[in-house]
């Protein structure tokens, strides 16, 4: 035994071994910490990248302009601008030509293209708000085109940089909050784009998803947990729900394309079809969350209700469901948040068209925010980079709010029995 060092406590090798084991312990612990720290660091890096690239998208550059509409070839009767179709009249007038003329007059011939869609739109709005602009000289601040905007923010092509320098020399540029980004829809000029159309599409889609997936999910969770007999059929239902929860989302897109579009002939690109597809995808998530919540309601509640003469159905709908509802809602909100961020299945059913007007109803062509982000990320124009990142910030804010709501609900209402 004397040749076994571990048997003698006084021997230094024992101490050494213990020290080695303890340092292995510390290393292991540090590795664990490192793993978590890396995940958090990546998340922080991702959020930082999006914020630093995207915050610029919420502001735009405006240029000062001496506008002399009476001398331009814009002919609008001021009386028409008070009517309901003022927007149309303004859109038909050649405001773009007037802007180009004014820009050249103010900043010289190189500045002929500093204004784009956004400037024309803003000028139209100013005209409707103040028709006297038609009959006088005025100094206006108007948003510049996407290319110039990027150059003013320090990332543009050399020619635009030169124009920006020229305008800056006359103190003609300023940065303001870009409200249009939240109220406008998709456009060809990046300075004129906004997320409102996509947000409205997302909203309509989620409404359809929620309206279908929530009742169906809750009812089937109740059935499986409270009524279903243990037999082959129930097993089949369970297996298919568990499997559906793990089927790739793009497969649901293929299902939507084959069934809703090609067999049932529902309108393409519509929130109705998107909502239906996402509902099929979200329903299993709600069922699984619902079953867990129902399972956690203690049997004593059911026994008590049955004991005073309630029917099985009354027990379930008067007692079990209200007690399980916070848990079900938490699962539902998380499922909805996932549906809100889903892109691939919606690409399959054609929600990737260029849509410049917000949808009026669930059967109108629409796009949703994640698809809009995907479409903008594909654009070559560099000024779309900050618009894409800005749209991502909007999307992430919505996700955070929904997940925060779910966590709040879980902490506030969930009871441990």
């Amino acid at each position: 035994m004397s040749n076994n060092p571990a048997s003698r406590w006084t021997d230094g090798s024992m101490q050494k071994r213990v020290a080695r084991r303890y340092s292995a312990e510390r290393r292991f612990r540090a590795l664990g910490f490192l793993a978590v720290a890396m995940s958090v660091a990546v998340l922080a890096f991702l959020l930082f990248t999006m914020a630093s690239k995207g915050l610029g998208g919420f502001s735009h550059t405006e240029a000062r302009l001496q506008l002399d509409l009476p001398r331009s070839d814009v002919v609008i009767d001021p009386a028409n601008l008070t009517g309901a179709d003022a927007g149309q009249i303004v859109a038909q007038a050649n405001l773009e030509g007037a802007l180009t003329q004014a820009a050249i007059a103010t900043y010289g011939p190189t500045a002929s293209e500093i204004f784009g869609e956004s400037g024309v739109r803003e000028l139209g709005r100013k005209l409707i708000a103040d028709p006297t602009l038609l009959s006088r000289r005025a100094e206006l601040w108007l948003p510049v085109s996407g290319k110039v905007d990027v150059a003013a923010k320090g990332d543009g092509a050399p020619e635009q940089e030169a124009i920006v320098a020229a305008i800056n020399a006359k103190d003609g540029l300023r940065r303001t909050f870009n409200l249009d980004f939240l109220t406008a829809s998709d456009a060809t000029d990046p300075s004129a784009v906004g997320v409102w159309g996509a947000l409205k599409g997302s909203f309509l889609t989620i409404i359809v998803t929620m309206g279908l997936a929530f009742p169906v999910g809750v009812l089937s969770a109740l059935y499986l947990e409270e009524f279903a007999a243990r037999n082959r059929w129930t097993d089949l239902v369970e297996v298919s729900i568990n499997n559906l929860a793990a089927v790739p989302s793009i497969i649901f897109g293929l299902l939507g394309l084959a069934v809703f579009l090609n067999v049932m002939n529902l309108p393409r690109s519509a929130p109705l079809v998107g909502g239906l597809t996402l509902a099929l995808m979200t329903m299993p998530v709600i069922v699984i969350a619902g079953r867990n919540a129902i399972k956690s309601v203690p049997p004593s509640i059911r026994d008590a209700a049955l004991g005073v003469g309630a029917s099985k159905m009354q027990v379930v709908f008067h007692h079990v469901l209200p007690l399980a509802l916070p848990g079900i809602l938490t699962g539902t909100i998380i499922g909805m948040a996932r549906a809100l961020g889903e892109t691939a299945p919606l690409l399959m059913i054609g929600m990737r068209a260029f849509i410049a007007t917000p949808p009026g109803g669930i059967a109108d062509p629409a796009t949703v925010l994640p698809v809009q982000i995907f479409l903008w990320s594909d654009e070559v124009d560099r000024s779309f980079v900050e618009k894409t990142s800005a749209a991502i910030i909007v999307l992430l804010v919505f996700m955070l709010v929904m997940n925060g709501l779910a966590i709040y609900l879980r902490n506030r209402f969930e009871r441990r029995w």
Partner: protein
Amino acid sequence: MSLGLALLAVLLVAALAGGIAYRRAAALRVGRTKGARLNSLPIYHALHTALWAALPALLLLAAWSPVQTRLVAQSVLSSPEGKALPDSDIQRESILGEAQDIAIGKIEAGFNPQSTALAPQFTAANNKFATIGGGLALLAALAGAAFALSRVKFEFRARAGVERWVMLLLMAASTVAILTTLGIVLSLLFESIRFFKMVSPTEFLFGTSWSPQMAMRADQAGSSGEFGSVPLFWGTAFIGAIIAMIVAIPLGLMSAIFLTQYAPAKVRAWLKPILEILAGVPTVVYGYFAALTVAPMVRDFGISIGVTSASSESALAAGLVMGIMIIPFVSSMADDSIAAVPQAMRDGSLALGATKSETIRRVVLPAALPGVVGGVLLAVSRAIGETMIVVMAAGLSASMTANPFHAVTTVTVQIVQLLTGDQEFDSAKTLAAFALGLLLFIITLILNLIALSVVRRYREAYE
């Protein structure tokens, strides 16, 4: 009369009948004679009557509306204006579509004059068949209401009747999952069979060359229309099952170990939601992050270590970001299986003098291994079905390279590519997407079933 109007009428009949039933039952209850006691509360009589009036009629309406579409189309085509339409399917369809839009007032005039002539036919046929269907539904509602009203009596068990309806509703809701699965399988299978009539299954399954561009002309170069899916599945496995897992398994597992075994409760309460945020970030955001930030970094790194052919779309960039996306998933699965290991095993090991890390490595992890493996399988299944990250960062070239700095393409990328171009629906190119979808579905199904059964057996072992 339109079907929407019929729907309203049915609901109105149901509400009225319910109201009448309530009044009758309430009257019975007040004026009850000795010995006779109303079995169910008036509200149940009302619900029972309303359900009998509404549900059969609504089902009838739902079944009628597709039938009506077909009947209308038939009757329009058999009218003299319909017979004058061109024979070409595409032209006829577009004229019919326009005529329909005019008939329902969506547009004022069609592009094709024939559609304007057809519009009245559409209106007439629509009216005719909607009146028939709506009338039938209304009759069904009235009949149901009359039947249920005749049963408002002392001894009638209206509550049991209502509960039978609710039970039917519950059962119907639970079959939606099966119908969805069936719908997925059938639609994929149906289109895949059509695809395999054009391309042989052996070529599809074992071919190593993928270029789905069909030649428009015979002499067109580079458009051979080859459908060998092996490179796609290699790319999918390379990104989803190899690179992503190399990132996600160690990080996810170590995170779970740290959070469950080492972190103080307060730290855990903060870190867990942060990991959940990582799981909640939409995939399109990860995709953009991969394409915009990670891919250039990977390319520069590749060039700096001497891989001159490093491209800006690389398997490594997509796989890295996908791995990060999967971390919270692996971590929570590992968390669950570690938590399921009985405390007694841990205590026994610690009591023998093992350090915490030795206990974890030698006792807890081997015991939790089946659960962890099941979780990893589910993670793989999720990674290979992931679409947006690879669409935005992995590229389109179907190559069988093992160089992580090269672009590869995956099954999901190709499905998106095949289905988002302008393609008529019957070409082999479009149908190939469904065949790929079918294979993807089968692979993920097998992975899920194995994983679920492993996890379940493991849970039972410790219960």
